[in-house]
């Protein structure tokens, strides 16, 4: 097994903890047969532990490696610095990140508003569909980074909540 330098960024790993950890395989390396190659891309077959040989396609795009295998698509990128990883962890995050590209059509909160878990924060129209961005937890709004009419991309910061330890009046248990 090759030492891991990449982290799976999509799809999200199902396990509750560390998404980057892949169980050790009993064999060292899978048997890989390359059938075609092109600009930054290889195609071939890989033999799985259960003996099946299935097709794959791997494509590098900048800092991302895309792998299609047996109907499933994966995206990997170099493991992010610890700080970023911590910021991305669900549940305790302070940054509310835009899930889709599109246009902001409504902002339901302003600075210093108290919000409940599940409360609507921002509505984004993307591909003709409204996407409602909800608060992942109870807290207080530190900053709203977008306004109505803004064009936004996936991964952009929409709203920042006060960190839990600093939340004013945050005596509740979270």
């Amino acid at each position, binding site marked *: 097994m*090759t*030492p891991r*330098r*990449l982290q799976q960024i*999509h*799809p*999200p*790993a*199902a396990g509750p903890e560390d998404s980057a*950890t*892949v*169980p050790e*395989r009993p064999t060292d*390396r*899978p*048997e*890989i*047969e*390359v*059938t075609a*190659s*092109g*600009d*930054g*891309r*290889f195609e071939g077959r*890989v033999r*799985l532990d259960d003996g099946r040989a*299935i*097709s*794959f*396609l791997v*494509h*590098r795009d900048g800092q991302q*490696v*895309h792998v*299609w*295998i*047996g*109907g*499933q*698509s*994966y*995206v*990997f990128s*170099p493991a992010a610095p610890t700080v970023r990883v911590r910021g991305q962890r669900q549940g305790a995050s302070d940054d509310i990140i835009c899930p*889709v*590209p*599109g246009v902001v*059509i*409504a902002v339901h909160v302003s600075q210093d508003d108290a919000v409940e878990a599940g409360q609507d924060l921002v*509505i984004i*129209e*993307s*591909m*003709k*569909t*409204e996407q*409602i961005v909800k608060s992942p937890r109870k807290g207080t709004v530190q900053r709203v980074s977008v306004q109505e009419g803004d064009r936004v991309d*996936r991964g952009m910061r929409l709203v920042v909540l006060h960190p839990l330890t600093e939340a004013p009046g945050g005596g509740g248990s979270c």
Partner: protein
Amino acid sequence: MFAKVMVANRGEIAVRVLQTLQAMGIATAAVYSDPDAKAPHAALADEAYALGGSSAEETYLDRQKLIELALSCGAEAVHPGYGFLAENPAFSRECAEAGLVFIGPSPETMELLGDKIRAKAMAVQAGVPIVPSSPLWSPGDSRPDELSSEIGFPLLVKAAAGGGGRGMRIVERRQDLEQALESAGREAASCFSDGRVFLERYIPAARHVEFQVLADSAGNTIHLLERECSVQRRYQKVIEETPSPALDAGLREVMGRSAVATAKSAGYANAGTVEFLVDAQTGEFYFLEMNARIQVEHPVTEETLKLDMVEWQVRIASGEPLTLSQDDIRPTGHALECRIYAEDPYADFAPAAGRLLAWRPPSGMGLRLDSGVTEGMEISAYYDSMLAKLVAWGPNRQAAIGRMTGALESFPVVGVTTNIPFLIRAMAHPAFVSGDYNTGFIPQHPELTSAPGPAGLGAAAAEIAELFWQSNGSNTARPTADARPDALGPWHGLSKAVYP
């Protein structure tokens, strides 16, 4: 017959319509927005004209621009596809005033059917059962209690001008009603320029079954059997099939007659679809609405009846009579359609944009792909997220499912997240395989959309990515199309690698 037709749409449906027009020997013109300058529909047409702009409003929804282009290129008719202006009576009327034939029903019929309240009254007159619903609600209206009292909860908020699930919300509790009305009204206003919505009783465990109809200008009307469309997310269809596993011969007969009665009562001419809800528990059915356009899912009907629905649209619009009779409609086998959406099945089907780094559709016996994209294309957030429709035909349902599964598993797509992994799981799900499913299929089965564990494919993918990344980093040799070992760059020196 027309000498030249302009297609006022984009994506797979524009390609689909252009293909039929070309097969009929009709000259074709396409229109395109800035992001679509290199799109397949623009390349396929004999002539293609820039609409200038990116948003739908300044391009495919700009009626004046479209009519001016149609006139200046010498088109005699306009095919609107579905979505955009397909069910816009004003566009149809303006086409007629400009001397252009609009390939679709008359503006009067569209106005009637586009108003869901009037359409329901019309169905009642035709003797077709309907789902109880409220009068219209407009933004600022303060009567939600009055409107909901006769309907009860849970209920649906629906757009009066609706279609395709836009402006639709399910409301379980009274306290969520105002917000749902406002949100649905806003979405409806954005999609249809009409923010009016109404309430409708929600029937749990319902199946969505629709009947295709064809009618000519003389009123000859037949139906082309049903399509089962119960696999939905956000009230939008994802998987369709015909025949429906929910109908027996008796129910099919009665619903088919109701569909024809509805179309005749609406004075319908051209291809249209009558949508019904079927209560899976009681076997009762209710008229929902009639869609005055070609449907996204029309290919499953075409594959079991071996006919070209777009060709019939064009022939009827040019004044030809419908030469098919109801007795000519004899289906063969079973057809399934999977809509390939650019969206994340593991994140509540959130839309996903990006560049299609790889797009390798499968092909073979009994397979059909209606696609509007090509490899390398940028998928923007401006338009709908549907990339293509994969259709599989088989002599029976089981064979069609098998063929579809094989095709989905051998359809490499990277760069843009798609719902293909979900579709593969759906094809294998016991509820789908048994045919006993309803519109709650996706929410009732969270295993369809839960992220995959790291075992199996994920582990192999991680290994492949790692090898590719690490050897690519240390080896500057550029990979070539020739896959000899010494030309392999990133893969050079793999311990167990086997090269052809």
